[in-house]
């Protein structure tokens, strides 16, 4: 049993990280007052751009290809999110519909482009990111084996971003203003905060994070773009809600979901786990999110103004 946990842990973490960073992106967007149902599409865009960039350059730059791929995914994720920001912030569009459009555009355009490149629509990278065991830290009993063996560099990057995001949201000027925009945009505006600009930035940050999440998934777990994010973006959205729009809550929620999904994925081959029907493990994150929504219905921590277009004229 203990061995099993040691075995599963690296996979669970690897599965958690793309969810975590995407969910964190969603946090910025929603804390600024913009619902982001488009996380799935933004992730998919990151997957495509990441895979595409890496296949172009991995022959010539084998050492840096993965990192350039991640960077490209971040950039194009942010750029693509601009479309959502433009609709939601400048045009006062319905944020849910715009998010759905983002998902559909991403899935249509990426597959369209992928087909032009490969015909089949699948883009496969040759070498993903390699796992490393961190020298000294991995010697720590229990924790060393759980956390510091066979890890990806992206894991540490994302955890660093998590810590940084928490600092940014709660300790800095930027964070105070961003949260004000999500709670009471008119108050922010009359205090001289540019609500439109804050929301544009927040939505683009969510695009960059989701792009990174998608590309991370490609270079660590799947190795291939195949035209779908398989609901990962929606899982990240569920984690955002289950984590009650708080960075550390999101960490807990994504790890929870990541572990459950990992167990479901491997339960076929591990006898102990095959007792649990996969259907329960796979539907678990969604069911528990529904339950969380019911339980928190009286005291939801959702930003007050999320989903409302900010219209200067209406006051």
């Amino acid at each position, binding site marked *: 049993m203990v061995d099993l946990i040691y075995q599963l842990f690296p996979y669970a973490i690897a599965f958690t990280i793309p969810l975590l960073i995407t969910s964190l992106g969603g946090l910025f967007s929603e804390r600024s007052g913009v619902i982001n149902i488009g996380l799935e599409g933004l992730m998919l865009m990151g997957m495509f751009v990441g895979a595409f960039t890496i296949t172009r350059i991995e022959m010539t730059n084998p050492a840096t290809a993965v990192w350039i791929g991640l960077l490209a995914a971040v950039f194009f994720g942010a750029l693509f999110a601009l479309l959502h920001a433009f609709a939601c912030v400048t045009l006062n*569009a319905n944020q849910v519909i715009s998010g759905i459009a983002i998902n559909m555009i991403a*899935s249509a355009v990426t597959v369209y482009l992928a087909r032009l490149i490969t015909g089949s629509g699948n883009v496969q990278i040759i070498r993903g990111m390699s796992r490393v065991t961190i020298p000294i830290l991995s010697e720590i009993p229990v924790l060393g084996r759980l956390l510091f063996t066979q890890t990806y560099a992206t894991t540490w990057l994302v955890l660093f971003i998590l810590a940084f995001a928490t600092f940014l949201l709660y300790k800095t000027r930027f964070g105070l203003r961003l949260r004000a925009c999500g709670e009471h945009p008119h108050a922010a505006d009359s205090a001289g905060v540019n609500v439109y600009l804050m929301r544009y930035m927040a939505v683009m940050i969510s695009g960059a994070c989701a792009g990174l999440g998608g590309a991370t998934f490609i270079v660590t777990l799947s190795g291939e773009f195949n035209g779908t994010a398989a609901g990962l973006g929606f899982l990240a959205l569920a984690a955002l809600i289950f984590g009650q729009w708080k960075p550390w809550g999101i960490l807990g929620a994504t790890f929870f979901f990541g572990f459950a999904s990992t167990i479901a994925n491997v339960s076929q081959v591990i006898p102990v786990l095959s007792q649990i029907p996969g*259907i329960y493990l796979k539907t678990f994150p969604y069911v528990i999110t529904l339950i969380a929504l019911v339980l928190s219905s009286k005291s939801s921590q959702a930003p007050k103004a999320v989903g409302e277009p900010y219209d200067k004229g209406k006051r």
Partner: protein
Amino acid sequence: MKTKVRVKKDLYMSLFAVLLGLIAGAILMTATGNNPFDGFYFLFRGGLMNIERIGNTLATATPLIFAGLSVAFAFKTGLFNIGGAGQMLIGGLCATAIGLTFDWPKPILLSVILVAALIGGALWASLPGLLKARFNVHEVVSTIMMNWIAYWTVFYLVPQYFKGPFLETESQRIPAAASLKVPWLTSLFDGSYINLGIFLAVVFVAIIAFILERTTLGYELKAVGYNRDAAEAAGISVNRNIIFSMSIAGALAGLGGATFYVGFASNMQIGVLPAQGFDGIAVALLGANSPWGVFLAALFFGLLHTGKGFMNAMTSIPPEIADTIIATIIYFAATSVLIERNWDKINKIRLDFMIRKREAEQLEADSGGE
């Protein structure tokens, strides 16, 4: 009751969104080195060039009509049903399960299949309705969750109980008696996919239009949708209407699932959320949430989806161009406030003018009477 002005405005806005969608498609084709005129020519030709293709367009449009009606109906009650895909899956699962289990005469079997799909979809959607009514859980989030619960339910149940002979990822083929396809219709359209579903769809479009415009039920549902608080203060039971509305929306999507899985197709694939569930949102938006608007919009999207394969065969343009156009249309439909704003500006001036005219007439009538 819609005023003429509103219908006209909706029509213009929809046509404008379509135009922008087509332009976006043209830009994408051009940017990837293709001739957009060729592309559109083969795209539309592929959906209309012969009786078989026309049949396929209608068959493709059928589940879209149901999915669009589902979204539009819920929207009338102010609810955003993103769960069409999941409700279709459950409706399809119920239909397939019955079709594969019972060996009854076709009329009876089909009736039971349709009723089962309808109930399945209705129940699946009633839960988000209940959560919304009872706990004020946002239906957008809960229907998304329900989509993925449906996805994994089908993913595990189909291989376990209805596994096909060849592939792990699909169910057995349903028998002819359980299919909405009928020989006379198939041969009338030269062997196309068309099936009884299209007639069912037209009937339901008419029923929904009637419910919304003429009945007290429709009046209540819309009142709740436009203004929940005012409806409640006026004595309308908001919670009951929300659950009701979601259930009817789910029933429509469930029927759509039946027309897809036991009409258009003959078995169920696992690991796919039916795209019609989301296309239904585009259909509803483009159809301005009116039943007959939904019907027309679904036919248009059916045409795009049917023609895309032919276009792909005749040019080097990937078929996803159709999906790109649809997705872009949703985007522009969402952002149509730009157009709306100007439209309202013109309309406001017109209304002010009419008030003044009425007042002047009143004045004249008053002075004439003295």
